[in-house]
């Protein structure tokens, strides 16, 4: 009895429990299966406490038939694997959304401790004895989570085969008996789900089918960075663990040796970037990854790479700051540090992807740019982007140029070699250790064209100019989006200017505003340094008012835009530790539409505060 709904598939599922309940693993299977089934998937797991092993986690997955750009503030389904953790999140379930829970606690519970007493009147209760079914069909209660996800699949009419495929591939290195038992638990839940009368109105329509189905990969932002590194031919990686960048290092530790390359864990972030720069000096592609506190330690070395003109790629996944701040909360507050954090005039390239696919492209292109422009390149992510999963279609052809070096032409080798020669495009021929007759010293001291220390005024002026001028070419680097406009063309009432992970929420707000009849456009700026000034000015010319939503207190991107284009913008800043709320942006858009001169709303008005316990 399938109801024909006027809207296409858009279901968000939240799974809440502890890591011990297999919460994240369940979410992982769900999102991979849905991507395999052909849906668009975007997912973001939250670990409110710092130590993942013991605390609460929530795996949120949004499944859609069309491309979407952000998670919804409210989910359509909540699966509780642990009532104590899930109860505070029941209010995040949408009206007429489902709450799936176990109604066979192992022991008596105090009044109020069972989730059934916490559902809002508009929620739909689906109780199913996960634990009993797991115990009955497998050797114990451990597969409760698989019963739950099986139940979900059965209830929502999702084919079980895609789940079987994903479970089999996820557990392929595990004993066959274990996989078998997991499948049994899944099927037991599935049968229950099929037998349950579905009362909800939000049911999936058939997944959009495409020829590219097999190339759709579920990956997180950090996964995409890793893939970009590998495709760009990374040879060495040096890192120091820090949330939320660590998983880049961990995945490279698995993948790089398989390609004969090296991942080395260093004693600190200074050492990590120092080694990456040392490796860059040898002419090979090298990178490190860190978060704000690590980037702070790396800034001195970034300056060295700038003046010594050594390529290095630094992935920075931001989190709440300053200082140690909020290691497991997301924030976009290291823009200043990334763009400006340097000794002297230390300009570098800064790329900020806005989605998972962008992480892949920016990662690969960062190596090309670092090598081509002989400078450090920062790829700026944040916890939300690093940990969020999207179904990404990747080309089978490696899109990255494997060698962008400006070498030393043969005919020049008889003349004294000028490592820092001033050329028409400001890029100097770069020799690397091992090349005969081109020995030279690079230094953090100001130097002349030969690399000899020299602090004369004209030399410093000329070299400063060279180091800035050469980066302009990055704005026209091939095959990468530097900035891009979305939404209505021509003159619009509201222009949304955004960057990084929060651009998804900005786009969703844009579409909603358009739905309300507001003419609206959005521009994402991927390259923050050097800044695509003329494109941004052209965009702003088209907008009656420009709103800049971002996740930091100061409006760091708004400041950057203001400094680069010399115009004021409307700030919309929040420091909530979670992604921006689409509806909050929308409220601001409406407000600005009514009164383009409205003063900014205060950061974090009480109404938008997320109650995370």
């Amino acid at each position: 009895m399938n109801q024909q709904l006027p809207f296409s598939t858009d279901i968000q599922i939240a799974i809440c429990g502890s890591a011990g309940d297999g919460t994240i693993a369940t979410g992982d299977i769900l999102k991979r299966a849905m991507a395999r089934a052909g849906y668009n998937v975007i997912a973001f797991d939250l670990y409110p406490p710092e130590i993942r092993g013991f605390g609460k986690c929530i795996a949120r997955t949004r499944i859609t038939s069309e491309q979407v750009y952000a998670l919804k503030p409210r989910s359509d389904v909540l699966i509780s694997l642990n009532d104590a953790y899930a109860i505070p999140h029941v209010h995040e379930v949408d009206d007429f959304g489902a709450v799936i829970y176990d109604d066979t606690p192992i022991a008596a519970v105090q009044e109020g401790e069972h989730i059934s007493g916490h559902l809002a009147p508009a929620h739909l209760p689906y109780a199913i004895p996960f634990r009993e079914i797991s115990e009955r069909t497998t050797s114990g209660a451990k597969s409760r989570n698989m019963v739950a996800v099986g139940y979900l699949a059965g209830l929502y009419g999702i084919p079980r085969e895609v789940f079987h495929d994903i479970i089999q591939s996820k557990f392929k290195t595990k004993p066959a008996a274990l996989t078998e038992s997991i499948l049994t638990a899944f099927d037991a839940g599935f049968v229950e789900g099929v037998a349950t009368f579905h009362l909800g109105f939000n049911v999936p329509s058939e997944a959009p089918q495409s020829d590219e189905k097999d190339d759709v990969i579920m990956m997180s932002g950090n996964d995409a960075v890793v893939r970009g590194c590998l495709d760009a031919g990374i040879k060495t990686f040096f890192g120091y663990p820090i949330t939320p960048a660590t998983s880049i290092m961990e995945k490279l530790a698995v993948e790089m040796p398989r390609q004969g390359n090296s991942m080395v864990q260093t004693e600190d972030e200074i050492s990590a970037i120092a080694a990456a720069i040392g490796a860059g000096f040898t002419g090979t592609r090298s990178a490190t990854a860190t978060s704000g506190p690590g980037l702070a330690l790396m800034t001195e070395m970034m300056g060295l790479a700038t003046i010594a003109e050594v390529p290095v790629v630094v992935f920075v996944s931001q989190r709440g700051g300053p200082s140690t701040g909020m290691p497991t909360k997301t924030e976009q507050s290291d823009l200043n540090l990334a763009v400006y954090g340097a000794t002297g005039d230390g300009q570098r390239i800064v790329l900020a992807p806005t989605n998972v696919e962008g992480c892949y492209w920016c990662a690969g292109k960062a190596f090309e740019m670092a090598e081509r422009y002989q400078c450090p390149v920062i790829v700026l992510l944040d916890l939300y982007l690093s940990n969020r999963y999207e179904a990404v279609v990747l080309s089978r052809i490696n899109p990255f140029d494997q060698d962008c070096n400006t070498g030393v032409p043969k005919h020049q080798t008889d003349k004294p070699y000028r490592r820092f020669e001033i050329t028409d495009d400001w890029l100097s021929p770069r020799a690397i250790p091992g090349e005969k007759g081109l020995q030279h010293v690079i230094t953090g001291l100001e130097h002349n064209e030969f690399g000899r220390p020299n602090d004369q005024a004209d030399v410093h002026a000329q070299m400063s100019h060279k180091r800035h001028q050469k980066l302009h070419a990055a704005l026209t680097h091939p095959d990468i989006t530097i900035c891009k406009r979305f939404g209505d063309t021509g003159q619009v009432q509201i222009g949304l200017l955004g960057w990084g992970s929060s651009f998804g929420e900005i786009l969703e707000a844009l579409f909603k505003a358009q739905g309300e009849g507001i003419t609206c456009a959005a521009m994402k700026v991927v390259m923050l340094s050097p800044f695509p000034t003329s494109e941004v000015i052209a965009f702003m010319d088209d907008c009656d008012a420009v709103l800049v939503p971002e996740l930091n207190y100061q409006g760091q991107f708004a400041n950057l835009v203001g400094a680069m284009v010399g115009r004021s913008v409307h700030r919309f800043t929040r420091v909530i530790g979670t992604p921006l709320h689409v509806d909050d942006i929308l409220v601001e858009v409406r407000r600005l539409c009514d009164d383009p001169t409205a003063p900014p709303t205060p950061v974090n008005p009480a109404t938008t505060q997320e109650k995370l316990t």
Partner: protein
Amino acid sequence: MNDTTRYVIIGNGAAGNEAALHLRQRDPDSRIIMVSAGKLLFLNRYRFPEVLDGVFDWREFLVNPPEYYIKQRIELRRYTWVNHIDPHNRTLEMRHKEKVGYDKLLVASGAGGYLPEYLGEYAPLLHDFNSLRNAMEIRSALPASGGKVLILGGDIKGLDLAHTLVRGGREVIVVASEHLFWPHQIPREESGRYIDALERVGIEVILDHKIASIEKGAKGMRARRVTLDNNHELNADVVMAFYGLMPSLGFMHGAGVDIERGLLVNPQLQTGNEHIWAAGDVCQIWSPEENHYRFYYGWKNVKMMGRIAAINMTGGDEAVDTFKEDRLFINEQDEIDSTFWEYE
């Protein structure tokens, strides 16, 4: 214990909801908790036949929107079951192992369809009509148009459905038992004119025959084959039983209150336990005039009981009018009608 009174209502039907509304009005600071087995909010069951006409969105049948419960601060615990009641500690022991305490308890758990023992073995072949799901299942068991439905027993709920089905172009046969017109007790000599009224709208009524067996229909035939005690065979797409109601009371055993067929209460709707009241199809009220406990059915009666229970639970003193006479009659459309069917 703090000052606010905890009212717990078992049941989420007409009686329970009416009681909750009046409890809130009369004791604004109290906590009101409704415990019910259904997944959904209070639905208007009288409109379930509309499902057969293609209304699938159950939100259409909501008596109160979800916001109502938030505004009235009525806490709902749906899809939960009471295992038993501990009257000494004043707690409900729930099937999901949670204990829910009460100061004052209203049992308004309603009643389910009664099925005579000799039909028990055929239950899997019968369709119920208690829930939205049942209604949807009946719709899918019937062909897009036409189709044949057998109504066994023939209580007034069944007859109401029979009218709806006939109006929708379905063929309906009522295999009557002594429950025909239940809960109205119609003497045999008077029943003829009501049966005539049924047949006038196209409902066939078979009298004086018991069911011998119910089977699945043979291939190519309708889904059910019913054989009567005279070996006469009836084929139908759907067979439903309407033999009156049976109070849903299993969980009340051991609670120290008196139970006959229903939960026995005085005209103030209080049970033998000073903390426990009852209202709706579940209770049997002492009628001093008739000198026995009797049931009062129908939307209007049930709502009245919910209101009176709430008044008495909050210190009032009001009694159910036990003189009340309910009757069957032929209405202006020349169809049979019951005072039980009246509702605002």
